């Protein structure tokens, strides 16, 4: 700096600013490829469809309760769902239904559903 020619400093300074700015723009473009990655991984990891599907299966089981009881298939279907869940989905599943209760003038039985695949745990008691 000392004893140097000090002409044209603004031009050099602006050039430096533009160069640094271009680097940051490149960084932003590079990072934009990652938009949605964490979201997608979160969606894939959370077993939304598994839990929904399990609820439907349990409600089907409760719907068919009478018919299943007549032929003695209650425990069989219950074992199907818990054992296949453990084997194929690595999920511990437990469910059951209690005696029907009076809920706002309707007879509904409390259905408990438990689901745990090691990452996500889900418990529900629903009157169905």
């Amino acid at each position, binding site marked *: *700096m000392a004893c140097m020619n000090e002409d044209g400093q603004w031009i050099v300074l602006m050039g430096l600013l533009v160069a640094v700015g271009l680097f940051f723009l490149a960084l932003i473009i590079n990072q934009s490829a990652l938009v949605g990655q964490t979201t997608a991984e979160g969606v*894939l990891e959370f077993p939304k469809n598994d839990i929904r599907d399990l609820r439907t299966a349990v409600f089907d089981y409760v719907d068919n309760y009478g018919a299943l009881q007549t032929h003695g298939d209650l425990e069989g279907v219950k074992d199907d769902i818990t054992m296949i869940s453990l084997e194929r989905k690595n999920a511990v599943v437990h469910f059951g239904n209690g005696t029907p209760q009076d809920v706002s003038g309707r007879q509904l039985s409390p259905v408990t559903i438990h689901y745990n695949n090691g990452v996500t745990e889900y418990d529900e008691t629903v009157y169905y």
Partner: protein
Amino acid sequence: MVNDRGQLYTMEGVAAGIIMLLTAYIVISTTSIYTPGDTHIPDMQLEQLGSDVLAMMDTPDTYGTESALKRFVNTNDGTGFNSMFLGYCNMMTNGADDLHMSASVTYRDGDAIIEHQLVAPDGSWTGRESAVRVTRWVQLDRQPGRDPYGARAQAVLVEVLLWRA
């Protein structure tokens, strides 16, 4: 002897060093390439599509009738399952998508969990596809002489492997 000359040169040197380090860092970090396959976004979309297709197949046409999915499993109709599933998930507003699938049904026989292949993978399957798995429970009513699941009322798990070729 130490004197106080050259302070500006020292500061300039330190500033230049910092700028060079920063430049090297930014250049290296901007040249790493992240391919779309690493972001799992297509997997997420494919899995959602497959789940929706299975939900559509499991919805009966009218109340009280049997859904198509249940009928295919009950009658062990892999061809019908394959054509309906691929018809639904390859449907696009222009042309058709190129999705392929294989399917199996998992059922329980005593203490054994048995996997029965409903639809075999087609020729595009090499084993290296980034396939996603979608599943759906199907509850079968008591029906004598059903093959191979047996006559008792039971819950079976339909599993579909879905990939884009």
